[in-house]
């Protein structure tokens, strides 16, 4: 049984048909990537998984359970955390308060403390800035914070929306290193990226989205060798 399964999901923004029958699966322990241009429906797909947007038809199934009856704030209790597009940190809250909010769904005080230490180990920069208002962090630090905050929910499935956006190349590398590390520790990852080059290096499988439809799905290797992907997303002729 796959961990996450989207079956023929159709979703709308008002009258705009944003997702036209998306079907994807994610197995436990995998890194799966969704690549595609701006406006292809990548973020929308993540929004239907987290319940921020409910599919009009089709289903989102997590561990064999249909998520349709759960409002967005219940999804994290099912083990799904998200690093939102543009980081979505609470800029008026301190770094520590952001991490506290990441653990909002939990009440195991000892576990939260452990995970906080683990997050600071992973991102020592955040410990240094613990009591700083997070709006004053640099872009890279904000990305670290958004990732650490999602980890504070101790998710089994982590959705990441463009974690490399707006970061210097050096930082992009380290973000992808971290994603691999998180995955090795047992968290399944669904990664949305415009940076297909990097995404396909760390993912096992990938889907290509175009205007709300999946046009291609294959192993990461297979996608890297696909002429269409090479031309459109990897910048190769």
């Amino acid at each position, binding site marked *: 049984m796959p961990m996450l399964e989207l079956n023929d999901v159709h979703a709308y923004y008002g009258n705009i048909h944003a997702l036209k029958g998306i079907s994807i699966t994610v197995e436990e322990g995998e890194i799966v990537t969704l690549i595609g241009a701006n406006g292809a429906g990548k973020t929308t797909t993540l929004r239907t998984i987290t319940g921020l947007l409910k599919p009009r038809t089709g289903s989102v199934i997590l561990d064999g359970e249909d998520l349709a009856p759960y409002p967005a*704030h219940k999804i994290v209790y099912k083990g799904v955390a*998200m690093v939102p597009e543009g980081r979505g940190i609470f800029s008026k*809250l301190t770094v520590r308060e952001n991490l506290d*909010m990441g653990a*909002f*769904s939990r009440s195991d005080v000892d576990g939260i403390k452990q995970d906080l230490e683990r997050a600071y180990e992973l991102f020592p920069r955040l410990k240094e800035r613990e009591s700083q208002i997070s709006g004053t962090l640099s872009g890279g630090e904000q990305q670290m914070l958004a990732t650490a905050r999602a980890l504070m929910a101790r998710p089994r499935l982590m959705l990441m929306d463009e974690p490399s956006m707006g970061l210097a190349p050096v930082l992009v590398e380290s973000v992808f290193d971290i994603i691999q590390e998180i995955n090795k520790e047992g968290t399944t990852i669904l990664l949305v990226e415009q940076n297909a080059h990097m995404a396909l290096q760390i993912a096992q499988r990938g889907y290509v989205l175009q205007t709300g439809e999946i046009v291609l799905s294959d192993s990461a290797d297979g996608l890297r060798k696909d002429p269409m992907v090479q031309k459109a997303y990897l910048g190769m002729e």
Partner: protein
Amino acid sequence: MKKLFEKIEYIDLFLWLIRAAIIIIVIWGTVATILDNPYSTRQWTDFVIFGVAQGSMYALIAIGYTLVYGVLFMINFAHGEFFMSGIMTSTVFIAGPMAATGFLNRHPIISLLIIALFSMLVSVGVAILTERIAYKPLRKAPRLVPLITAIGASLFWQNFYRGMLGSNVKPFPQFDILAGSIPLLGTQVLKTHIAVVLVTIIMLIGLNFFIMRTKTGKSIRAVSEDKDVAALMGIDVDRAITITFATGAAMAGIAGVLFALVFRQVHFFMGFTPGIKAFTAAVLGGIGSVPGAAIGGLFLGLFESIGPSLFLQSLGIPAFNQLKDVIAFIMLVLVLIFRPQGILGEPLAEKKA
């Protein structure tokens, strides 16, 4: 192009003329009053103390406007009714009977606590009902819609209380321990005024703790920044919004008790003027900012209390004391012209709209 240029010039000129005129009147009046010296230092101290007490009540009510605006970007014009409903109910059903049986002055502290608790509970109840029934279904409607609904809710509660409890003014019983005054700062200060200021300080400290330190308080701040991301954290946004209304209403419920202690009467329309004034205070301080609401309230109270005597008395205006509301709203207009975001507000920008 030239026409547009001229138009802007006229508007600017007009605005500058208004500013200059107001500044000149204020300075002229102030200088004249200082030269006349109609009041003793002690009287000025009295004005300040009254202003601080009045401002404290505005501050407590203003918290509700600012909190709700922070999470919903909505001006809850029914907030003055949350303030009225608590103390009205408490006076009629608790304070009145307590005074009649003599319990009130035999156990003044217990009575006061019961009255305050009851007033707070009723205000919170009215707020939650209003939010759930009148505001929540309209959360996704254009922003003008909840505004009109809020005015409707305000009229509804006013007339509901008028109908259920009668439209006459109801006396609030005298607490013997709060009667009279004590010497302080070289003058006699009414005990009720001291009580008002002390209670306000305690409530503000408690509120600050709640908002800044507790998990629920942090979740309210998270919701006020980004509702979608807050939901991703597992925060029930609707619940957080209801708690926000309830918190503001609890403050208003206490403000109602303080109001009754000072003025010793309540009636169904008592929420209107303090409500509008507190809204002014919230805008003055920077709407959306909790410390701003407190400072704005204090500022407005002081201005109303000192303003008429300081600026207007020596200008030969016959009933200058009746102009305190005029001064309050001129203050509002001035602040909006010179500093649209209020004293502590941040520049209006980002995704606030």
